[in-house]
């Protein structure tokens, strides 16, 4: 115990009473001989040799994903008329912790909303697939899809623009339909009726 150096004041050391001494458990006679334990282990591994294999042979077989909440490549949803559903509110760009979304907004050519994205880029290499953009979107325009085989030859190729993101929607809308198609645009403007107060969709 002796000979411990004087601890300068203000320096926090681990207090003696906070140290828990954990000794190795004593081995029983059989364990000290190793052999019974070794044979037990070999029995286990031998049994595993003939068990059903859990490998998924990837390109041929695919794991079944939980489509609803799998966070793969993003898509930009289309509304019923095939227009981009985004209203260019910048909520996703603000929420994004990786700063991978870049939006250029412009005046909407349609009368049910004020703005629409002229440009909408997502750097898929920067993205951490956290799903915050999806959480932030007030009109459920941006969503993560179950698509995960994301490949490209250059960095530029992996920056997905608006067209590419809409194509992802076209590819995946069968598998994962848009969550809440009715809340595009502003209630009461244009040609659609106001939303019910609860805001529920189909």
């Amino acid at each position, binding site marked *: 115990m002796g000979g411990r150096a004087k601890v300068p004041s203000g320096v926090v050391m681990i207090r003696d009473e906070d140290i*828990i001494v954990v000794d190795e458990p004593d081995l029983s*006679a059989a364990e*000290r001989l190793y052999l019974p334990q070794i044979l037990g282990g070999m029995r286990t591994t031998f049994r*595993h*040799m003939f068990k059903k*294999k859990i490998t998924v042979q990837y390109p041929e077989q695919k794991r079944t994903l939980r489509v609803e909440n799998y966070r793969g490549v993003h898509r930009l949803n289309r509304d019923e008329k095939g227009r981009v559903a985004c209203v260019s509110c910048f909520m996703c760009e603000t929420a994004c912790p990786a700063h991978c979304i870049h939006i250029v907004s412009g005046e909407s050519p349609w009368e049910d909303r004020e703005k629409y994205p002229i440009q909408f880029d997502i750097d898929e290499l920067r993205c951490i697939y956290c799903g915050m953009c999806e959480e932030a979107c007030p009109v459920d325009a941006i969503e993560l899809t179950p698509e995960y085989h994301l490949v490209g030859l250059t960095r530029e190729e992996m920056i997905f623009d608006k067209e590419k993101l809409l194509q992802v929607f076209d590819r995946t809308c069968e598998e994962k339909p848009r969550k809440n198609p009715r809340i595009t645009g502003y209630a009461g403007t244009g040609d659609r009726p106001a939303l019910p107060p609860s805001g529920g969709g189909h």
Partner: protein
Amino acid sequence: MVDVVGVMDILKDQFWFSAGLAAALIGVIMTVVAYCIYFERKISAWIQDRVGPNRVGPLGLLQPLADGAKFIFKEDSIPANVDKPLFLIAPTVAFILGMIGFVVLPWGGSVDLDGDGVVDVVAQVADPGIGLLYLLGVGSLGVYGVVLGGWASNNKYAVFAAMRSTAQMLSYEIPMGLCIFIVVVCVGSLRLEDIVLSQVGEGHVWNIVLHPVAFFILLVTIFAETNRTPFDLAEAEQELVGGYHTEYGALKFGMFFLGEYAHMITGSAFITVLFLGGWHLPWVPGLQPEDVSVGAMFMKMGVMGLKIVAFLFLFMWVRWTLPRFRFDQLMRLSWKGLLPMCMILAGYAVYLVYVGLDRDVYWALGGNIVLVLSVLVFNVLHRPLVSGRQANMPAIGGRQPA
């Protein structure tokens, strides 16, 4: 047309027969080594509930070829500060020492090539009177590749691995030598064919029946000699990066790899010859010493091969089951466990030979059983002085775990 009789005449000369056998062995052993690596991966996969390599060729059977091609075409870099000559020699040494052990192994007993009732050749590349010593020497030199590689790499981790490997080899060489001593004392010859012949025929049994404990200890020491898990401290990647071959790549790394597997095959053959009757199976016609036809030779080679394959499987099975020993456990097992047991066994074997009972199954087996029982009793009564943290160390203070 090949003149069969002419070929036979040439082969009846032991020199040419040996040359042919050596050429065939190199091919066979290299293939077996390559497929050892394939099966190592397969067995590890099966044990871990995976499928293993299955992409290259049917069932992945061409995987060794792909691996080999990869080794050849990779950049063969030599780090800047290595001891260049030694760095280049080390993998070669490991590989060659792994391969040259095969020449003294008795693969198929005596052969009568032309069927005239006269034994023409021995199915063995070389048949020296000191075959056993030769095998022992080559096996022990196997550590040379490891030490040279570790030293030449100019890398502290590689040197650590080399040092560990050396200490391990020294510690396990002694029980191994004593196990072999038991066999040699009972057989009275260092010729490997004599050792096989002493285990076959009327009234003779395999040495494993006479000396099961010695067989088992030899098996353990061969695991250690070949640096296989649980004795693979020389390539403990968690502690030593890659161990002695940290700085090696491409074909040079491949040669270390092949050398290790060739070493395993030699070790398996070694223990087969010493304790499991080599090419012999009891009661099977064609595998007895008086069967000397060419067909019998091939059968004997097959049996020998099967026994080796069984051992290789055991090596892999154990590797994917057991964790690695800690260094103090490694040393304790050899010096305080195997060595005393071996010394008692060796003394008992000498006594049996002295009183002429060395071929008596009951006496030999009885001694083994008494030894095992006394070790068990000793083990129950004896508390090791050191187990993990030393008991006589002062407490660090603080509270004991609840």
